[in-house]
């Protein structure tokens, strides 16, 4: 056990020494790995934020009824009355056009635009929750509402949620693919870097073997080297994703506020961050292992 610890400490020390011994090479390798990993890391960050948004957005499907621009208060009252009599409706919420206008004006970017308009661009709206919110029934209700007078547009919110859901699934697949692709890239980078390392340490490998070193002893510093390179790259990727989060937070928040979504872009969470670092170190180690398998027998 003590021997094992000593061996590992020495191997890690040797690996750190080699990394620091060629700082420019090390820095370039770490940057290359970091930039490659920043893509899936950034993707995962956006995805996690989108999931967060999707989770907080009400998932009860609703139907929005927007009145025509030229509809007056009387038309709205009539629709309200019709809705009251209509069966299968659990809840009706009326949002007056003035109310919408006030809320939109609260948004910094929109205030000027809205004030420049001659009239209130927003219509009166009803938001309806149905007692039976299965998609078929919702479609039927929406079709019915579309027939009503002075109704300009009927929107099924569940369709939007379903679309977001599909989009997120696609996003998750994309991040996974990106991760696989660039993870393979990381393995390739460390594979090659460690091959070079082995060439420069050929004398050391040969002498160690003659003095009774096991394969494990010889491989250990290289594996640490690969894992540390990967870890360094993972750290760079994490920093890049974090910087992107800070940078995009303002503009993206403004953009999605238009869709009434409140989003403060968060950097990668702790589990994702740990996963990123562990995966980077693990893949670096794997690249090293494959390289050793390939080249050590010949050395």
């Amino acid at each position, binding site marked *: 056990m*003590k*021997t*094992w610890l*000593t*061996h590992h400490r*020495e191997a890690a020390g040797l690996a750190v020494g080699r990394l620091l011994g060629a700082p420019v090479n090390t820095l370039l390798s770490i940057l290359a790995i970091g930039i490659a990993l920043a893509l899936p890391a950034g993707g995962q960050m956006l995805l996690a934020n989108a999931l967060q948004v999707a989770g907080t957005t009400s998932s009860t499907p609703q139907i929005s009824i927007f009145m025509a621009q030229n509809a007056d208060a009387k038309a709205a009252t009539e629709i309200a009355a019709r809705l009251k009599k209509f069966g299968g409706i659990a809840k009706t919420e009326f949002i007056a056009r003035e109310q919408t206008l006030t809320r939109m004006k609260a948004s910094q970017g929109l205030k000027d635009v809205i004030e420049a308009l001659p009239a209130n661009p927003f219509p009166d709206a009803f938001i309806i929750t149905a007692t039976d919110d299965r998609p078929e029934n919702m479609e039927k209700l929406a079709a019915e509402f579309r027939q009503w007078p002075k109704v300009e547009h009927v929107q099924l919110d569940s369709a939007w949620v379903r679309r977001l859901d599909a989009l997120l699934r696609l996003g998750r697949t994309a991040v996974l693919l990106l991760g696989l692709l660039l993870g393979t890239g990381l393995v390739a980078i460390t594979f090659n870097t460690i091959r070079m390392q082995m060439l420069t340490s050929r*004398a*050391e490998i*040969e*002498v*160690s*073997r*003659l*003095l*009774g*070193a*096991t*394969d494990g*002893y010889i491989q250990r510093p290289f594996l640490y080297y690969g894992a540390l390179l990967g870890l360094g790259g993972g750290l760079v990727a994490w920093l890049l994703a974090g910087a992107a989060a800070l940078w995009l937070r303002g503009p993206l928040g403004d953009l999605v506020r238009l869709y009434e979504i409140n989003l403060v872009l968060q950097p990668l969470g702790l589990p994702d961050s740990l996963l990123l670092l562990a995966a980077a170190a693990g893949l670096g180690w794997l690249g090293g292992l494959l390289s050793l398998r390939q080249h050590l027998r010949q050395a």
Partner: protein
Amino acid sequence: MIRFDRVSKRYPPGIDALSHLSFEVAEGELAVVCGHSGAGKSTLLKLIAAIEKPTGGAVLVGGQNVGGLSRSALPFLRRRIGMVFQDQKLLFDRNAFDNVMLPLSIAGFPPREAAQRVRAALDKVGLGTREKALPIALSGGEQQRLAIARAVVCRPSLLLADEPTAHLDTETAADVARIFHEFHQVGVTVLIATYDAGLFPGARRIQLDHGTLR
């Protein structure tokens, strides 16, 4: 300690370095292997440390057939043997101390005890004050002694040396030879390949001629 039983070694493409060689070296014995250049001295030593494998016969070290050892068993044989290589095989990017430390680190010695042993080994060969020196800064004789320190630092029971006095002036060569005598005196089995058997008076001679005993 060492037994060669009709050992042959043929290198590709068909060079017979050793043919049907049989001899024994007892425990605690000091023996020199001598013979002309190309007689097979280095090959003989390499077979003992299983750096090469015999193409015929059996090489036994401590009763163990070393030619048949698996790859994973080789390291443990080599840790029991101290070897001074013909080309020394020092690591030129490490100082004297770290060169001698290597076998101990490989064997997994605790660092503090290992450091004491390294200093003792360097003292023994007269390099006690040069532990920080890189091999390149050492003279030929000092390099040779450094190689010896590395070979003995694990206190092996068997010490092999391949022409340890080559390229040394007579005085330095005698110095190096004396070190081997000292190890023999404390009970280590010593086998030395040399062209100059006169440096080791009283040692048993194994005389090689074109891969056979003469």
